[in-house]
C-alpha cells in the first residue's frame, strides 16, 4: 500500500516539475525574438472587439505586410455585429488592390462566445467565461495560428490562454502580440494586466509613455489612432 502511495506521490511531483520547467522555458523563449530565420508567412489570428478596439486593430493590420501575415483569421464576439463587417471591408479593399487573386489566401471570419458582457456581474461571468474557454479551445484547435494580434477585448483572454497552453504542450508555437488600447493612459485594462503579469503576451505594446514607465517590460509605440 505504502509503495503504491509513494509511487503516486513521486509521479505527481515529477509531473509537476516537468510542467513547471516547461512553462518557465516557454516564457523565457517567448520573451526573445524568434530564433529561426523569418518564416515565409505566418497564419495570423486577429482578435476584434466592440468599438474602438476594432478600429485600432484594423489600423494596425492595414500597415502589416499582407503577404507575410496570411492567412488572416478575424475573430469577434458573437454579439458584436460591426467588427467583422469592418474587417471584411478592409479585406475587400485589399483584393481590389491586388491583380492576382489566386496568389492570396482568403481571409476567414469567425465568431466566438463572449466571456463577459459589459456590465455583467462578475459572479455569472465565471460561468460564461468557462463556456467561452471551451468554445475558444474548439476554435483554436481548428485555427492553430502562428501569430495572434489582440488589443484588449475580453474575448482575447481565453484565446491567449489557450495559445499559451498549446505552446507548453507542444501543439503549436504562437507569437502573441498585445497592443494596449489608446484609451488606457495610466492603468492597464484587465485583459492587459492578466496577459502582462502572467507573461502570456510575447510582446506587449503601450501607446502612452506613462504606461511604459509603470510596466517596464512593455514597449512604447506612440498613438495608433
Amino acid at each position, binding site marked *: 500500500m505504502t509503495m503504491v502511495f509513494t509511487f503516486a506521490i513521486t509521479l505527481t511531483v515529477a509531473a509537476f516539475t516537468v510542467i513547471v520547467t516547461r512553462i518557465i522555458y516557454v516564457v523565457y523563449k517567448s520573451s526573445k525574438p524568434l530564433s529561426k530565420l523569418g518564416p515565409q508567412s505566418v497564419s495570423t489570428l486577429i482578435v476584434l472587439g466592440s468599438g474602438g478596439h476594432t478600429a485600432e486593430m484594423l489600423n494596425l493590420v492595414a500597415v502589416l505586410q499582407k503577404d507575410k501575415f496570411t492567412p488572416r483569421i478575424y475573430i469577434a464576439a458573437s454579439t458584436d455585429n460591426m467588427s467583422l463587417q469592418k474587417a471584411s471591408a478592409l479585406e475587400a479593399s485589399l483584393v481590389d488592390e491586388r491583380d492576382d487573386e489566386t496568389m492570396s489566401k482568403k481571409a476567414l471570419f469567425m465568431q466566438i462566445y463572449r466571456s463577459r458582457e459589459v456590465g455583467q456581474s462578475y459572479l455569472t461571468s465565471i460561468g460564461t467565461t468557462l463556456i467561452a474557454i471551451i468554445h475558444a479551445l474548439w476554435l483554436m484547435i481548428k485555427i492553430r495560428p502562428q501569430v495572434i494580434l489582440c488589443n484588449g477585448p475580453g474575448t482575447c483572454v481565453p484565446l491567449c490562454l489557450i495559445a499559451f497552453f498549446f505552446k507548453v504542450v507542444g501543439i503549436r508555437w504562437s507569437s502573441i502580440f498585445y497592443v494596449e488600447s489608446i484609451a488606457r*493612459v495610466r492603468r492597464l485594462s484587465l485583459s492587459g494586466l492578466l496577459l502582462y503579469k502572467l507573461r502570456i503576451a510575447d510582446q506587449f505594446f503601450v501607446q502612452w509613455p506613462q504606461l511604459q514607465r509603470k510596466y517596464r517590460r512593455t514597449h512604447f509605440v506612440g498613438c495608433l489612432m
Partner: protein
Amino acid sequence: MRENDDGQSKKKKKKKNVVFVTVGTTCFDSLVRAVDAPEIKQDLLNRGYTALLIQMGRGSYIPTKVTFLSCISGSGSIFETLRLGKPLIVVVNEGLMDNHQSELAEELAERKHLLCARPQTLHQTISTMNLESLIPYPPGDATPVAKLINKYLGFLVD
C-alpha cells in the same frame, strides 16, 4: 461605436456654426440638461454659434424648444473628431463606474488637443474657452508596432 462610451463630445463646426452634442449609445441626461441651460445657449450665441444639434442616445430628458432633433447612431469617437480638425469639448460621464475613458480625455486635454469638462463645469468651460489655443492632433501611426513585430518574427522589412 463604443459600447461603454462614457466620454461624450461636443463638436463645433465653424463653417455652419452648429454645435453638435453627442452622447453615443449611453444615457447622459446631465449633459443634455447642462447644454440646454439658457446661460450656455447665450454664451454659444455670443460666440457666433447659431444651432445646437443634440444626439440624445438612450436619454430621457427632452431639451426645451427643440425644432431640429437628430438621432445619430454610431457616434464618432474622440479621434474621429480630432482627425476632422474640429474643436472638441469632451464631457466626462461620472455616472458610469470605472470611467477609464476620462483618462484619455484628460491626457488629450493636458496636451491641449481638446477641452475637458464635467456637466457641472460645462458652462464655465464654454464661457472661458479659447479655441485658438487648441493644438491640432497629429495623426496616429501604427508602423512602429509593425516594425517591432516584424523584427521579433525575423521578417526583413523592405
